């Protein structure tokens, strides 16, 4: 699967992105890495240009909710990207625990999955996507 991996708009952390790239490649995926501080417009442009099978957004700076919402809304506003699978992982806020309300808003806005720090969940999500890719 071709995965577009990206940080979020206000997040300058990169060790998470370096790690996830290796992790995804070790699971046999092709990875296009955009790096940190990717705003919603840049993300949508990159998706149109690279035509990935799935988008993985990672945030650890505590603004994952705000930035993630902007990002997924921008993707869903683009007709060509309306059905592109998007998964958001990492920290949604600064309080250190998941807020159900925030998760629901992100799902309502078009995220296919909102994960915390659990890589097994990411692996499972991608495995399901990989299966649905197989032509019927």
């Amino acid at each position, binding site marked *: 699967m071709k995965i577009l991996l990206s940080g979020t708009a206000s997040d*300058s952390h990169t*060790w*998470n992105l370096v*790690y996830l790239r290796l992790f995804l490649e070790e699971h046999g995926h092709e990875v296009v890495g955009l790096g*940190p501080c990717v705003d919603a417009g840049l993300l949508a442009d990159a998706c149109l240009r690279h035509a990935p099978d799935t988008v993985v957004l990672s945030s650890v700076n505590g603004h994952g909710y705000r930035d993630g919402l902007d990002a997924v809304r921008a993707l869903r506003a683009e007709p060509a990207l309306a059905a592109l699978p998007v998964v958001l992982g990492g920290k949604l806020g600064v309080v250190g625990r998941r807020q159900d309300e925030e998760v629901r808003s992100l799902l309502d806005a078009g995220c296919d999955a909102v994960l915390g*720090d659990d890589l097994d969940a990411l692996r499972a999500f991608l495995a399901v996507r990989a299966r649905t890719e197989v032509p019927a």
Partner: protein
Amino acid sequence: MTAAATVPAGSGFGAFVAAASAAGRLVVQPRMGFGDPDLMRTGLARTRAATAHTVGTLTVDSYTRVGALDAARAAVADGTRLNGYPIAAHSPDTTRAVLDGLRGPGFPVQVRHGSARPEAIVRALTAAGLDATEGGPVSYCLPYGRTPLRESVAAWVRACELLTELSPGTPHLESFGGCLLGQLCPPGLLVAMSVLECLFFARHGLRSVSLSYAQQTDAAQDEEALRALHRLAAEFLPAGVEHHVVLYTYMGVYPRTESGALRLLEASARLAVRSGAGRLIVKTAAEAHRIPTVDENVRALETAAAAAALAGAPAPDTAPEDGEIYQEARTLVETVLGLHPELSRALPAAFARGLLDVPLCLHPDNAGRSLGFIDPAGRLRWARTGAMPLRPDTGADAAPFTSSGLLTALQHVADRYDRDRDGDGEQDRRRDGARHHDDAARSGRAGRRDTGPGRVAAPELTV
């Protein structure tokens, strides 16, 4: 009479550190920043009153850092909590009131931010009467975002000129070059970047600078790096430019245990004294999880100061003239200086050609062909050097670079200090000659630890 005449000679930030060094005292400094002016003032007052030889810090919030000044102003207007002091959103009068009666010749205050475009911050700090800050065209650009390096260089040229022009005394600028990404960058490149950025500052008018270095994985290697930094600063900085070396307590994944975190901080204080650093930026155990409180900052300052006071006098410099780190750094500095007479042109050219190449840095202007690794003895070395004029360590590239290997490397220091009662123990080991045996045993245990995917999420780091 000019404004400069109203400032007593030798009253600047650099002069304060120089005087402390001459008196055999290590200056310790927090990374403290609060959005609320009253809390910021309390933080500075407590820093000043700590049982330690301190300078104060105003760490700027991340909205201001990325130039989102409207967002910073809006947060101030509606009372939203910020992760630092929004120096360009508060009025100069507010900042003067924060500093009033605290900042002075006996307690200088430095503004720390992390901005690739620092002009608004420099204007705000000078308007409030401050004259010491930190950064650099490369070190505040590459690790933190996607501002093009050329734009950062141009912005830092203007920032240097503004700082010199708008400060009545002797403004001070610290290079963050020895801290690139915080960890897993072999020391030669860190030392070279500190020297190059301080040269850049000097060529754009600064007469007082400091050269940084962040504690890495091995105390003896760090000591060699710090000595190389002293030597290269003396060789390359123009005569008349006052300078000192500043050490950062380990910036990567921090020990999770209270005792491990404490020992790592103390080890950095001893390293600073042993290698003749003038100043130490401390880290609190809480920092890995959240913004530390004033109390936690004061505790870290006092812990470091006590460890420094017990460390005795600096050891004599016994490093060989042709030490590996010195040679690597000197080669990099000379290579860059040879590219173009203007450093503002030479630095982007060096990155464009991969002659400088920061390992594991994702910035679009970084070649990304270099890679470091921690050898079995615990030293940080080059697995790959890309197009840099350096030789990688032979055979180092044999092991594949994997996600679990990366996690093990990122957690190497934290694991060691969490596990052992003497995470550094560097003096004892050197004395009894058991150093390599001990280190190999430690590294072997680290290798067996389960850090594979599934147990830990993408590592969260504060740099």
